[in-house]
């Protein structure tokens, strides 16, 4: 990635501020974004499932389903 591009914008209090512009890479990807490959060992995989997909696989995740006041 080349130099960062900054844009000048107005902040909530009316001051001019410089903010970071788009940071995407130009062109087309030549490989798929195989994020699962980052999980090397069986322990990593199991831990990932228990945190990322805690909705089903974590024992201490209740989400919306065990609230005192139902929605």
């Amino acid at each position, binding site marked *: 990635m080349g130099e960062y591009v900054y844009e000048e914008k107005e902040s909530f209090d009316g001051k001019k501020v410089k903010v970071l512009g*788009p940071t*995407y890479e130009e062109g*087309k*990807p030549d490989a*798929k*974004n*195989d*994020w*699962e490959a*980052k*999980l090397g060992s*069986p322990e990593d*995989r*199991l831990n*990932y*499932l228990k*945190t*990322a*997909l805690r*909705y*089903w*696989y974590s024992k201490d*995740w209740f*989400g*919306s*389903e065990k*609230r*005192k006041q*139902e*929605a």
Partner: protein
Amino acid sequence: MADEKGKEKIRSIDNAAITLIEKAQKENVSTVFFRADELKPCPIGVEESCCKICGMGPCRLPRPKKAGEEKDRAGVCGATIETIVARNFARKIAAGTASHSDHAREVAETFLKTAQDEAQGFAIKDEVKLLEVALDYGIETEGRESREIAIDVGKKALEQFGKQDGELVYIKKAPLKRQEIWRKLGVVPRGIDREVVEMMHRTHMGVDQDYKHLMLQATRTALADGWGGSMISTDLQDIMFGTPVPILGTFNTGVFKEDQVNIVVHGHEPFLPELLVTATHDPEMKALAEKVGAKGINLTGMCCSANEVLMRHGIPCAGNFLQQELALVTGAVELMTVDVQCQMQGLQDVSECYHTKLVTTSDRAKIEGAIHIEFHPENGLDTAKKILRMAIENYPNRRHAVYIPAETQDAVVGFSHETINYLLGGLFRASYKPLNDNIINGRIRGVAGVVGCNNVRTVHDSAHIAMVKELIKNDVIVLTTGCAAMACGKAGLLTPEAARLYAGSGLAEVCEAVGIPPVLHMGACVDNSRILIAATALVKEGGLGDDISDLPAAGAAPEWMSEKALAIGQYFVASGVYTVFGTTWPTLGSEKVTKHLFEEHEELYKGMWAYEPDPIKAAGMMIAHIDKKRKALGLDKARERVLYDMAMRRALD
């Protein structure tokens, strides 16, 4: 071609399809478009006011043409129009469920053979998904080899078909409240095959003759598809071939290459297509292609087989359902393989007009006149190479001038629910929370699933694209599968840039921040199960109610045509989703049955059907439903932020 009023008939919004339809017309090649001109839908059959399940009929019971002439309509056995229409509808759901689930059976059998090292060329590729499914199935994983776990997973998956009692294993993945609704109504599927068989029995002459009771079993059958067969297919295919992750893909007939051997994989099962991907890299095959004067081998896909290899390997997609014959009209296709579902018999006649070899590959589906080379996993790679060799050797036989339309469109595909979860939070904070937060804060108004087929009675792709553009313009993020996904791909809606071009400002902001398109390609038609799981994750994350029916969400199949689409629609409705179908609707013969599906289902399942052929109006109905759900959740107005002190927190207890 002009219609009877002399106006030029618009058949597609896709230029590639239009030019190939014109070419077919000039060359006097029969395609679905011309056959549809000659053959109008039966006016009695279209509303399902006809019973032909016994030898005393068929009993034709059309609605009276004039209002005020209504009278009780019944067949010779006394079956009321309600029974007849509900039976016809239920049988379609049974056929749709059987199709997805027989696909799933093939997947489970191949999976087990793969785990037992009996399938040539296949492997357990995705260990994360294997663990995920093992946890779902309650299979011990600790200290065990992947192969051992996979064997148990395969056996457990196969059990789901023949089970006679209890509940399908995936039912417990649904939100708790949804499970309660199903149990209360007695529609939890016991075993996949059992529900289909019972549905066929209950719709036999003289069995279940209460339309509401019939629809309960139809629902149980459909749930055996969505939370059964389709989910098994998706999960086990992911383990064998990899869970889809974002990948660059290309759409439309322009993906064919004039100077290469073009092969199209068409149908639904991903086994042979996967091995053809492997075989095309074989140096022996490459050398053979060179020997016959081709500059390479160009593997492409059509329909859901295309979706499978597109989202896992980036294999280009040559088009959707209504383009299958048109692909051959290019004169550039050496060979097309077909396995099961959505392959028109007309392909054989079209292939004979050119040099194309049409090859049927499933032991369950032959086409008269086509070459049959049966695929079995035990020698799958050998079969793939045999078929590839046949294609290469056919390259010198091109006898027509090749015409390949220029249209192609890049897209980002492969948004499994696991990948969406990862993209929203990264490896250490993967979560649906950012999506929930942006729905709650109103940047995203809601979520829509736009899925389904093409139907020649609607201008090809027009309803998909009009509806999806209307939805994203109104900040509704769209999840798409099947032929709808391909229509979106061809129209450039599956790129991150589409957010800036077509989406409302709120949705565009979120898409740009995450780096995703406003329309997410989630796979083939069996992968509608991914949408069910993504919707469940939204519920379980919190803040959007306790059930799928509480979500600001809706579903649609604006160009549906197959029985599978009706099964999908019914399991979405029964899962709590407001679902709008376009083009045609198969219960209009009975007001009571239609009212039951369109209104009374809401009382039962908190989801219901609707029918609207105008895609913009249909999108408006979906948005109105989304707004209704936002209001019910209290998201329709800005609230003053209250900072709680300890006393206020204690008061909550």
